[in-house]
């Protein structure tokens, strides 16, 4: 297993995930109310499995939150 350092939400984390799909599983993200972008480009959920996690890029993950 290769552990890689990546940047998620401006934080450096270590992950074994190689794709966004695996990263979502590793972070136990819920099925609904989550979206991801890589270097400010939105990656649709359907493309998570074929989008590789790249240490040189910034990953943004947002989720539903209470608000008015």
């Amino acid at each position: 297993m290769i552990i890689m350092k990546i940047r998620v939400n401006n934080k450096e984390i270590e992950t074994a995930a190689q794709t966004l799909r695996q990263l979502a599983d590793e972070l136990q993200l819920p099925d609904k109310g989550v979206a991801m972008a890589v270097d400010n480009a939105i990656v649709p959920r359907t493309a998570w499995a074929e989008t590789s996690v790249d240490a040189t890029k910034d990953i943004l993950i947002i989720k539903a939150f209470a608000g008015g």
Partner: protein
Amino acid sequence: METLVIAGRAFHSRLFLGTGKYSSNDLMRESIKASGTEMVTVAMKRIDLSDSGDDMLQHIVDERIQLLPNTSGVRDAEEAVFAAQMSREAFGTEWLKLEIHPDPRYLLPDSTETLKATERLVKMGFVVLPYCQADPTLCKRLAEAGAAAVMPLGAPIGTNKGLQTRDFLRIIIEESTVPVVVDAGIGAPSHAAEAMEMGASACLVNTAVAVAGDPVAMASAFKMAVEAGRMAFEAGLPLQPAGMQASASSPLTEFLNRP
């Protein structure tokens, strides 16, 4: 009561509810239920990697309820367009409460950026409900740009000050070609009733319910106030003259014999 239709979707409740500031997800869920609402706002936030937290959405998912994700936290039109796309991906809906308020003190919406973002987002297929100043000209421009409704403020967000902008809300309601949802500042059921009596299409309430001593009971109180206000509007309120001249409701003559 007349059914409210926004962008082809029918709403049987004219009370829209925010999900912020509840002390628990259980209270939020019960308040939503008690309010009878069919439109509920949600926000987006970067996930906290150290704490996965509770998934608040699972407490709202109900096919009668339209989710209205907001763009809170964006500072200009460009950020709003990005947030809207993230929201469409996250929530699977094109509906959007567009809110652009770069000023953290009063959270007042930036009219120029709001209009610019509305124009762009409508072209991208979003159902845009912009939170905006109670500015009749701006509301006209937003409707022309394709906004599905306009959501002028009664007072700054979270202030509970009621309809400070009432004279302008009246003009907006009178002239608007799209539904008018009074958003922000509504701090008591009487404020909501007043907005509805004026002919507003709906009210969006959050703080007043969420931070009430008993949010569930308050949600129910708002439900009744919104219904009462709407019913009164549809029943046709008597005209209120600008001056203060009394108008008798009982006969003033033909009772006592006077010389």
